[in-house]
């Protein structure tokens, strides 16, 4: 698993309140959790589980797009690449939730995602890319919007890194769709 947290020293130099976080952060970074983890912060677990649900849905959305027959190369390759990013996010979040003593939410069926995302209305490659861009922008803002709520500031930084990936996806998709870049600064989050 690719490390989400570097350098290590910045995150393990923690106060007593941060010991719990070190467990989650270590897992997110692909390292073994400390042997004696403290009781998990359920508030942070809840936020991470919402994020995990979002990642499950993103994986499903790209799966629907890839299987639709509507995507042609190179857009198909990009969709598969972005789906792999979301799978890495999923794995990291699930491991972090487990390290905090929480239970990771399960993915839903592809049919459930198709219904929730109204995938039956997708008729062209542009439709698929527009849906993907919409979800990526929503994910960016979702991650940015929950950062202040984390009890552990280090998990807030993890959320910011996830948001950066989603922003990269949105930017690439917007370019493919020939959409203009944001006209003003600070257009994400708020």
């Amino acid at each position, binding site marked *: 698993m690719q490390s989400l947290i570097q350098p290590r020293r910045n995150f393990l130099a923690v106060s007593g309140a941060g010991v719990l976080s070190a467990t989650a952060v270590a897992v997110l970074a692909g390292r073994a959790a400390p042997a004696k983890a403290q009781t998990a912060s359920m508030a942070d677990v809840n936020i991470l589980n919402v994020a995990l649900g979002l990642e499950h849905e993103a994986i499903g959305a790209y799966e629907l797009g890839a299987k639709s027959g509507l995507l042609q190369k190179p857009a198909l390759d990009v969709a598969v690449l972005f789906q792999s990013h979301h799978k890495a996010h999923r794995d990291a979040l699930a491991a972090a939730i487990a390290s905090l003593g929480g239970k990771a939410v399960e993915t839903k069926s592809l049919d459930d995602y198709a219904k929730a995302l109204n995938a039956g209305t997708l008729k062209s490659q542009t439709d698929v890319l527009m849906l993907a861009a919409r979800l990526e922008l929503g994910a960016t*803002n979702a991650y940015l919007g929950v950062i202040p709520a984390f009890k552990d500031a280090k998990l807030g930084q993890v959320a910011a890194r996830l948001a950066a990936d989603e922003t990269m996806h949105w930017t690439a998709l917007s370019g493919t769709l020939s959409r203009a870049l944001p006209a003003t600064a600070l257009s994400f989050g708020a």
Partner: protein
Amino acid sequence: MRRFACAGLLIAAITPVAAVAAGDGARGRELYETRCIGCHSIEADRIGPRHRGLIGRRAGSVAGFEYSPALRAATLVWDAATLDRWLTDPEATIPGQRMSYRVGAARDRADLIAYLTTAR
């Protein structure tokens, strides 16, 4: 003088603690499309529950949606004031909730609420 003081208390008792300014529903829709769409939609349950019919609905009451225990137990009914509190700080409004997404700017909250009010 005491009569005026009592009148003042009565007015304070019947006046909402924090009135929510009238919002711009069109701008609220734009905000919804960028900020809420990651988890919600008007018509379908996704990571969060659907928003059609939100105003006047009891929190945690969409049939078939898997809420947190905190939301299921909540007695709060969604209106402009309760939504404003929720969007300002969900955890302070219903401790144990799962959303945690905050909308910091009062104008943004008012505009989002104005839009959600149209989704009856």
